[in-house]
């Protein structure tokens, strides 16, 4: 008689994958049947309309000094832009790529350092007592204040830019991770210890998965902060980057280019944060299923 070897693990992974895809598909389909995406579109269009009415149509005092959406769009989609930057110029994409790469590096460093630090601070009270006051002190220092020290501390130029960008993301990640660990019900830890779990098992089976929702919330916030702090960091850049573009547009009074850079930055921040949210949903299927029930 032949016995069949059943790969339980593979079957479970396949089921989880198909459930994940079904959950995502049903989630997307469900979203379209609700009013949320339509209201979001109405909100965005209303903001655009308000901007146009204030700046270009009614030319309300003070708002008439700002470039309106038509002026910005004219520059943004021009083959021969007045200020030398549009979707048809390669420099626009050079700025985007340089900024995106800097944010990715800063974010990865913030995650690599912030998550373990937050986990350890949450797990070991003594370590937290040593480190928390220092963290709280450093967290309050504005990014701009770090710029001169960043230039002196790092040998190259990119290091200084990435460091300033990293700082905002790092604190958000660390604190949210710490909160995640602290949010775990003490009962789980006691139960695990009663059942004879080792410290390693408690960490990987309870602390880490328990803190994951907060970690991912922190990662979303820290991605936003990375884009935010990029502006301060790219003061040092000197050549490419959306933050650099904002500074030089301000100095050369190229207001439409300034708005183009701001909107592009906002869009990239939105997309990157949404990507992290999606990754988080995929990794925390147990939470998605719980919410669906």
């Amino acid at each position, binding site marked *: 008689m032949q016995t069949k070897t059943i790969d339980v693990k593979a079957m479970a992974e396949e089921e989880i994958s198909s459930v994940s895809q079904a959950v995502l598909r049903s989630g997307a389909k469900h979203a379209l049947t609700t009013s949320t995406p339509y209201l979001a579109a109405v909100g965005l269009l209303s903001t655009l309309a*308000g901007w146009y009415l*204030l700046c270009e149509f009614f030319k309300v005092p003070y708002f008439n000094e700002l470039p309106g959406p038509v002026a910005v769009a004219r520059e943004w989609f021009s083959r021969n832009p007045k200020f030398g930057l549009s979707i048809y110029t390669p420099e626009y994409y050079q700025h985007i790529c340089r900024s995106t790469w800097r944010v990715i590096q800063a974010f990865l460093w913030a995650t690599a350092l912030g998550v373990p630090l937050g986990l350890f601070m949450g797990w070991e009270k003594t370590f937290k007592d040593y480190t928390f006051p220092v963290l709280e002190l450093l967290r309050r220092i504005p990014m701009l204040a770090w710029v001169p020290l960043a230039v002196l501390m790092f040998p*190259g130029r990119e290091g200084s830019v990435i460091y300033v960008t990293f700082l905002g993301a790092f604190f958000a990640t660390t604190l949210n991770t710490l909160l995640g660990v602290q949010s775990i019900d003490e009962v789980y830890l006691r139960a695990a210890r009663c059942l004879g779990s080792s410290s390693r098992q408690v960490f990987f089976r309870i602390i880490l998965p328990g803190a994951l929702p907060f970690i991912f919330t922190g990662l979303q916030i820290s991605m936003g902060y990375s884009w935010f702090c990029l502006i301060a960091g790219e003061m*040092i850049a*000197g*050549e490419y980057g959306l933050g650099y573009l904002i500074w030089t547009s301000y*100095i050369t009074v190229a207001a439409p280019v300034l708005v183009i850079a701001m909107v592009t930055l906002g869009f990239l921040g939105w997309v990157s944060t949404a990507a992290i949210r999606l990754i988080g949903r995929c990794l925390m299927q147990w939470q998605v299923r719980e919410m669906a029930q």
Partner: protein
Amino acid sequence: MKKATLFGTLALLLSLITPLFISCTSSDGQKFAVGWQPYYISTFQVAIIQELGLVKKYLPGVEVDFQEALHGAIHTNNMLAGKVEVGYMAVMPSNIACSKRDQADIREVANNGVSNGMTCALLMARADAPDFQTPEEAVKWIDGKVVASPRGSCADQFMRMAFDKLGVKPAEYLNQSIEIIQTNFRARKLDASAVWEPTASRIGNLAGEGIAKIIATGNLIGNQDIGMMIMRGDFIDKHPDLAEGYLRAELEALQFMTDPKNQHKTVEMIGKYAVGMPKRAIWYSLYGQIPPQVGGTTPKQSFTFIIDDEIRKNINEVWAFQFKQKLVATEKPYDNTIDDRIARKILAEAGLKPPIGEIKGQPPDDNPFTK
């Protein structure tokens, strides 16, 4: 839910219309604002105007708000927004300000200093750079090096023109603010930079920290440094008496500054506003000689007050250069971009002819300040 939506909508509308109710100080006939830069040599006379009380003398009963900034672009934006009526800056940023006719009519009304590249186009190299025989050799050295200057400034103008005329191509040309440039010199991350006075004297080896040294000036490519006073057109047209009064104060301040017996007092006055700038460096930036071997000439600065033909030619040349760089929208200045009628009238009434003063440049040993 409906109440929350209503509340949210009201909050959004309120946040949008609040700026309309915030008072924006502007000229109402008895008050106007002047934007100047305590850390830029071509506006040093504003410190003298304030210290000598020249506003009270020529504009009795008028309140003048002197606003300080680290560079001209801040005043450009403030002038375009109607928050400042009078501004001081070099030709490059003043041309940009005057080119934005769709936003505001801004005009170049007076000159406050002309130099053969010794006030705003000083090419500094790191302290351990080689000693060059000529300025040409020095500029050729920056080929393939990391160079920086502040974007849209007179120093930026000089560097771009120098690259163009001399066929020099640095490895990287960075546009960084003057504070970042100073820090980069300290951190030895920069090979060269074009900066203006008094920063050049502050970081240089003639009267300063010695973290950099002057290797060439704008004289190398015939690039003149010109300080401009600009004014909003509506201010000139509606309040010509205020514009005239302020220009009279400016003339007296320039005459005071260029009088050799007032050197010590001038530096003391400037030192009160350029906080943190050593007086030794302030003196050297104004009165110190730039060595001939790096392109220094005599006089160091001359003050025409009016915008004469040579300055007009320079303004037009810089404008054309900026048009190529897409920094201004038109090929030439507007017809009334240069409007020095009031300055000419004041000079004629005083029986003066340009230059109204000159600064020759003295050797380092003449510096009366030790720090």
